[in-house]
């Protein structure tokens, strides 16, 4: 077991990041599967991270409670900003949610007495164990799987396909979209809270525009047709920088290049059941 211990010592951080990134990709998968291009997940992650860290750091709260607050806080915020913004669609919703993300970042930056401003929060207790992350991913996958194969998941898919038709089938569009948005915020917040208690330090710049785009990229890269897609996408995007370590400065270039290729040639993402069927020649029935 010695090799494992040394392997774990070197790579544990990376493996746990895999888990939190998977949660993030799943969080945006929820809104994407509803046809909503909402890019606020980076901000929700930040809200969750800060809310949970402030509790453990300043008030010695138990980790479980901090995690709960780390999920509840972004849910609440999502509910409030979802009311006006979810009426928007397409690029307008993307703009509004990006704007919201910037607002969150600037607030974190300027409320120095609470959040430490640009210096961020230091010395967050490292409570996150590997099994916390594993359990969170498993529960998230289970819940999302159940949701997908229920009336809610079907409503998501129907809204994505044709909002008007869905509403005339009796689907409450506003409520269903809100469900997707709030659940997504909860997952992002959970990922943020777990991640914060892993990394010792958090700062506002981690939850800005770049993070939002990274989360979106993971989901789009993997494909949003199934639950496996976002997970695969997050694994690839997390491991890619490690694999490309030797390219040093060109890492981001290669990263971007791969994305362009994927979007051009595999628009449904890497995990595309339809494509697999075509490749492996099974007939057009759906799983």
């Amino acid at each position, binding site marked *: 077991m010695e090799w494992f211990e040394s392997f774990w010592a070197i790579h544990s951080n990376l493996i746990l990041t895999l888990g939190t990134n998977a949660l993030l990709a799943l969080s945006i998968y929820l809104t994407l599967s509803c046809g909503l291009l909402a890019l606020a997940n980076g901000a929700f992650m930040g809200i969750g991270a800060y809310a949970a860290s402030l509790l453990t750091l300043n008030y010695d709260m138990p980790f479980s409670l901090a995690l709960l607050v780390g999920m509840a806080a972004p849910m609440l915020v999502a509910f409030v900003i979802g009311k006006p913004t979810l009426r928007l669609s397409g690029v307008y919703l993307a703009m509004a949610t990006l704007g919201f993300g910037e607002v969150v970042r600037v607030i974190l930056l300027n409320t120095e007495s609470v959040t430490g401003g640009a210096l961020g929060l230091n010395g967050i207790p490292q409570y996150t164990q590997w099994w916390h992350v594993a359990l969170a991913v498993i529960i998230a996958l289970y819940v999302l799987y159940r949701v997908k194969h229920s009336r809610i998941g079907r409503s998501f898919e129907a809204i994505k396909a044709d909002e008007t*038709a869905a509403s005339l089938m009796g689907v409450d569009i506003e409520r269903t979209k809100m469900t997707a948005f709030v659940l997504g915020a909860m997952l992002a917040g959970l990922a943020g809270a777990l991640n914060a208690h892993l990394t010792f330090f958090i700062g506002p710049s981690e939850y800005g525009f770049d993070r939002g785009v990274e989360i979106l990229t993971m989901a789009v890269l993997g494909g949003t047709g199934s639950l496996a897609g976002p997970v695969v996408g997050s694994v690839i995007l997390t491991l890619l920088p490690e694999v490309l370590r030797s390219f040093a400065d060109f890492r981001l270039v290669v990263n971007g290049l791969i994305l362009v290729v994927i979007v051009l040639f595999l628009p449904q993402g890497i995990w595309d059941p339809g494509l697999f069927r075509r490749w492996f020649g099974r007939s057009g029935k759906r799983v």
Partner: protein
Amino acid sequence: MLVLDSVSKSFGGLHVLQDVNLSVEPGSIYGLIGPNGAGKTTVFNLITGLLQPSGGSITFEGASLLDLPPHQITQRGIARTFQNIRIFKEMTLIENVIVGRHRHFTYGAWSLLTRSGAFRQQEAQARERALELLAWMKLEHKANDLADNLSYGEQRKLELARALATEPKVLLLDEPVAGMNTSEKVDLMTEIENIRQRGYTIFMIEHDMRFVMGLCDRIAVLNFGRIIAEGEPADIRSNPMVIEAYLGKDDDEEVTA
């Protein structure tokens, strides 16, 4: 059952509908005809809550439908199909129909997560009913195909099955045979007659005169946003205003919509 009382609709200065009065009786097939651009689909959009009328009232079983969002109107028992087919193409046929069953699911979040008895029973029931409705439309053998792979006529039938899945009291059909060939039309005519036999009330917009005259109990004619005639098919056929407005000059354009 479904009553429109002096309903009007204008977009800015454009009066699309003026003083429209209609009354659809339970168990009947009611037809709304008129030249292109007469405002027929607008009538449907007003009834289903996609648009709000500028004036007048719309009542269904005695209760007003004004200011209700579309999904609540569906829940009261009004379903519709669309002129330009709007099925969920990336979903299978049976999933399409089950979406129509949406309001009949009552299970909550907890039974969804635990796959409780109520959850499984309702899902199984929905599948069963969906298969039955697909069988009515003779599509049950394709239940697990993607809707996108259906032919045009089959897509119309799927839309009909999906609308029926909401268990409506009134079914609004917006040009059900548009773009269909003759045999498909005859086929669908039989299906619609069958649906009526099962106790549904039908309100349809249609261009195809033979189709309308053959099926409907009563017909209203809409021209430039006004009802110019209303009555039984025989009366409509012989009404000079109707012939002038619609039948006389529009004969060659029947296929346009």
